[in-house]
């Protein structure tokens, strides 16, 4: 069953080749090229025509990616261009936004001219994001928003924020939320850096003081915010659980290259045997992560993923942490040194060209893999309850108004 229109692989490849002929990626700038890619319907192929897509099966996106890589130096990684906008924001906007909003925002989202961020988590609401406290109160055609968000990746460069706020505190927590697109340049939005384990500030605290959002920037209906947020979260988890797209690629490739380049005799034969076995296990798991993601994509029917996406998210988070740990063990005494240092700053990609530096950085950065986008514990709860149908734990926060939920302290 499919609501998608049929298209052959060859026809799609031909379209990509035409795009590349008209706009040679090595010659035109990123905005121009990606703008043309959008106009050719090759941004999100499953989106309708006129919105960056062709209305065809989303698994064909891999064909586009493959063809885009051929015979050129310049290849853009969507997740680097605008990770939250392209991976999570756009599908949410596509599903719940008005035509006017889609036309106004999708193209610049894809080109990277306008970066997006995700304003979900709060100091008091992380795993329990539906318990959030930021308030939005209706005032004529606007909503007035007050509250604090935290861990907001990219907020310091973002034009748009995916904001979930409480519009009704008197009903159970999931029922009183609404979802907005927030112009981050609005008066009353204040962004402060938050530094992380590497000394860098990828994320931020965002303070919202009497911020006005026009009603037409609400996605979905008032009180429907949780349902809209779930769409964003499931797209996030799928994006975070796909493994590498190429055989033997991604983190395991870096580990294997560092292993191959190790100085002779760093490890005694017996030690080397242990490490070899560990690396090979990690290779198997990396391959299985990639193949499982491929299988999941094959089976995906509708445009938005379901709770099964948590399989890849959980597996990838735990696997990548182990791969980078193993890399440190291969590096031995070299790993006692952290060349970039820990000066507090905004992140830079420059210093990660070198494989060894990349690995040391990732050893630290990957600690967040099992926290960001939903913790591994929450993924296990979702898999247990939503996929396997196991009974939930007894809940103390169900069916009572949000304002009456116990908060401790």
């Amino acid at each position: 069953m499919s609501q998608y229109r049929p298209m052959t692989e060859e026809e799609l490849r031909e379209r990509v080749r035409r795009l590349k002929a008209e706009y040679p990626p090595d010659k035109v700038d990123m905005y121009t090229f990606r703008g043309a890619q959008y106009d050719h319907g090759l941004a999100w192929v499953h989106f309708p025509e006129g919105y960056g897509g062709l209305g065809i099966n989303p698994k064909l996106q891999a064909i586009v990616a493959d063809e885009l890589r051929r015979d050129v130096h310049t290849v853009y990684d969507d997740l680097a261009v605008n990770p939250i906008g392209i991976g999570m924001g756009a599908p949410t906007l596509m599903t719940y936004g008005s035509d006017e909003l889609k036309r106004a925002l999708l193209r610049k989202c894809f080109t990277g001219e306008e970066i997006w961020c995700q304003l979900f988590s709060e100091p008091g609401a992380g795993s329990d994001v539906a318990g959030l406290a930021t308030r939005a109160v209706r005032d004529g055609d606007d909503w007035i928003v007050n509250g604090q968000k935290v861990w907001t990746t990219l907020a310091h460069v973002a034009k748009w924020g995916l904001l979930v706020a409480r519009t009704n505190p008197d009903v159970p927590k999931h029922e009183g939320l609404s979802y907005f697109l927030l112009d981050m340049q609005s008066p009353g939005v204040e962004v402060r850096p938050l530094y992380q384990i590497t000394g860098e500030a990828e994320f931020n605290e965002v303070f919202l003081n009497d911020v006005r959002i026009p009603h037409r920037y609400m996605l979905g209906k008032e009180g429907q915010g949780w349902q809209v947020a779930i769409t964003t979260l499931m797209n996030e988890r799928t994006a975070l659980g796909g493994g590498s797209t190429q055989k033997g690629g991604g983190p395991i490739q870096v580990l294997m290259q560092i292993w191959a380049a190790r100085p002779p005799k760093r490890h005694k034969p017996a030690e080397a045997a242990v490490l070899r076995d560990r690396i090979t296990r990690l290779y198997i798991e990396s391959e299985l992560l990639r193949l499982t993601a491929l299988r999941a994509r094959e089976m995906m029917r509708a445009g938005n993923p379901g709770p099964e996406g948590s399989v890849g998210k959980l597996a990838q988070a735990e696997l990548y942490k182990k791969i980078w740990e193993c890399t440190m063990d291969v590096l031995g005494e070299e790993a006692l040194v952290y060349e970039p240092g820990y000066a507090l700053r905004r992140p830079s990609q420059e210093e990660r060209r070198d494989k060894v530096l990349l690995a040391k950085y990732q050893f630290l950065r990957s600690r967040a893999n099992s926290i960001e986008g939903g913790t591994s514990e929450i993924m296990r709860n979702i898999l247990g309850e939503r996929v396997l149908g196991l009974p939930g734990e007894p809940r103390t926060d169900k069916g009572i108004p949000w304002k009456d939920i116990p908060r401790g302290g």
Partner: protein
Amino acid sequence: MDFAFTPEHEELRQTVRRFLQDRSDEATVRRLMVTDDGFDRGTWKQLAEQLGLTALIVPEEFGGSGLGPVELAITLEEMGRFLFCAPYLSTAALAVTVLREAANDAAKQELLPAIAKGERIVALALAEAPGLWEPSDVRMKAREVGGRWTLTGEKTAVIDGQTADDFLVVARSSQGLSLFRVRAEADGLQREPLPTLDLTRKLARVRFRKTPAEPIAAAPDVQPQLERAFLLGLVALAAEQAGGAQQCLDLSTQHAKTRWQFGRPIGSFQAIKHRCADMLVAVEFAKSAAYHAAFRAQEGDEAELPVAARMAKAYCSDAFFQVANDTIQVHGGMGFTWEHPAHLYFKRAKSSALLFGDSVHHRDRLATLIGV
């Protein structure tokens, strides 16, 4: 008796803890870890003069307290808990141990009283790249011409190498493994402070080019003595790791009790409760490993020491890392921030796991010892 802790031991622990609560709070650690020296000379002086801790394992005849591995383990366990930034492990533990085990009387006479009084910082230059941690691995050669010795080569992961007044260098002579004293200002000595993964422990790479060195070994070949000293060093580091792991467990348990999500404390979720319980098992095992090794060393149980020391370093390295890793996880996003102390322990855990050889290395040696 296996773990014969006495009231004096408990008193020592409390004294060290009170001192560190006052002088090594988190703000102080964060201030010192970004300085070049990495420690506070005033605090070091107090540690020596008021608490006598720099003299802890210096023999009485050289102006010390003459205590042993058990008291050292207690002290380092507390220091590990507080991430105490000071050249204690390098000078008061490793250098004193090496001098006690392998140096001649003249060298002991010259260095031990000065260390005891907190007047000299002495670093052990043993490890070489790649992965040569053990005395038996040492490749650096010492040359003698007309009674004058010189050293050429490179030592790595020298703890407190950038602030040391003297280096104790392990190198090979034609007669075997030997020990040399090299002054920091000696010709041809170059020290390069390393940008460390773990900011709370300073490391340096030290290069020697025809550097004049004073032979101080107690015998022509002191390999057995140095090996024993190395094992005692493993025990000291394992105790420090156990202390760091305990602090991580305490932070995690506290957080699990006070952080609420879904209308209840996160510690009420079995995923978190069981994780904390597993951390507790790891911490208890780590302490057992470190204390057992310290007591066997104290009793002079030479047969058991190699087994116990390698077991302790292998187990405590893995346990501390796992517990520090879990501590970040239990704290969620907060545990990933610079502001929260979890990352300081996490980096200490990884770096101390690698220092002196990782757990794979020590399990390999242990396997041979236990006949696997």
